[in-house]
């Protein structure tokens, strides 16, 4: 196939076969290995990317579905070498241990804030329930998200 889309702000074209998932295209063809493969059944969220602002499992999307869409991966978050406020909060608040769930987790936070800029703790838990973390027990992740939202409000 020949599929054109916007990847981290730049136009690209994929020549992958029709039976290729977006996850495989991003990792193997676009060499964005920040997008992780954890289960390939939509059960872990490690492969989460933003598609037109929505956080989706890239393992559950075929390349043909991506035509004309805007994809954001973890590599596209930092602007001009400056960390995005969610990335910085995760790093500062001990929300990162092995880091394998981290890219998907951060993008699910981004997806949440796209939909709801002022979530409660429960809203955050619901929004992150599709991203499994085996290391942290989620506690410091939730704190990082709350801290990030506070930081953004105080720097608005």
């Amino acid at each position, binding site marked *: 196939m020949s599929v054109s889309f916007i990847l981290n702000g730049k136009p690209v074209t994929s020549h992958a076969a029709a039976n290729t998932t977006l996850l495989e295209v991003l990792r193997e063809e676009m060499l964005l290995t920040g997008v992780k493969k954890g289960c390939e059944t939509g059960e872990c969220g490690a492969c989460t990317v933003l598609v037109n602002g929505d*956080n989706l499992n890239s393992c559950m999307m075929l390349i043909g579905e991506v035509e004309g869409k805007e994809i954001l991966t973890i590599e596209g978050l930092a602007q001009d070498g400056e960390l995005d406020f969610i990335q910085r909060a995760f790093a500062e608040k001990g929300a990162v241990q092995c880091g394998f769930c981290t890219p998907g987790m951060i993008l699910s936070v981004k997806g949440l804030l796209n939909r709801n800029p002022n979530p409660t703790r429960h809203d955050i838990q619901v929004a992150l329930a599709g991203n499994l973390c085996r290391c942290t027990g989620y506690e410091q992740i939730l704190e990082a998200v709350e801290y990030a939202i506070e930081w953004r409000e105080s720097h608005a």
Partner: protein
Amino acid sequence: MHTQFEYDRPASKTELFELLDGFGEGAALYAGGTDLLVQIRALTRKPARLIDIKAIPDFQGIHEEDSWLVVGSTCSFHEIENSPCVQKWAKPLAEAASQVGSVQIRLKGTLGGNVQTASPAGDGLCALWGLEAELELLSGSGSRRLPVSSFVKGPGRTDLRPGEVISRFFIPKRDWSYSTFFKVGRRNALAIAVVSGILALEEKEDGSIGAVRICMGAVGPTPLRLREAEDYLLGKKVDSRVASEVSAIVQKGVQPISDVRAGKEYRAYISGIRVKRQLLAYATGKGI
């Protein structure tokens, strides 16, 4: 992916039917893909061609007609969960949508896919079944419309004929006094229902029940209407004795099996308890 297939994305019904008629059994309809891709990866389905129907306008959107709430088959669970008219006219369907999988799955998975997968534990399917929804099937040669409960035949089996596609769902608009969906899972997200159900009640002026739906999922080969329990409730006012009696009838009326997630005795027991709890929530909400 191990299985090789081609992919089409028709922009109209006409294009779709040409493809379906051309490729026959080798083609599979592709909507959200959250079930189908898992099956293809597990090698339980090996289509030669996937036909993505999400670009076809006729299968999209949610709107109201005089007597029906119309939901396009490719509406995502996220869309359904957040739709004001679904929340108003088919609240159990909105609640069921909100409890599917995870946010990522809800943003992608569709109601049509959920019905076509025909899992006994399907959350959207259970809500549609209990609300006596109908669906419309289109093909190159025409259309037909039938109740969802006639369309789904058993686990993984529907009446979808070659060349057909589910286009829309029709849910009767009904101003229920109380309606809800509930789900019991082994965990609070990303859970296949161990037991699920909808309860809908219409209360008469004297406070007794004029109409009722009790429909349970994951306790039979398809969702199950508990008609005996419904009949028992008609004409009665809900109090704790009535709720307990309904619970016992439900527990005897379900047909669960035991599997890796739960045993059948537990499923039968918890079915009754959860219906009872919902009835009591309704009753205490009214101050009874």
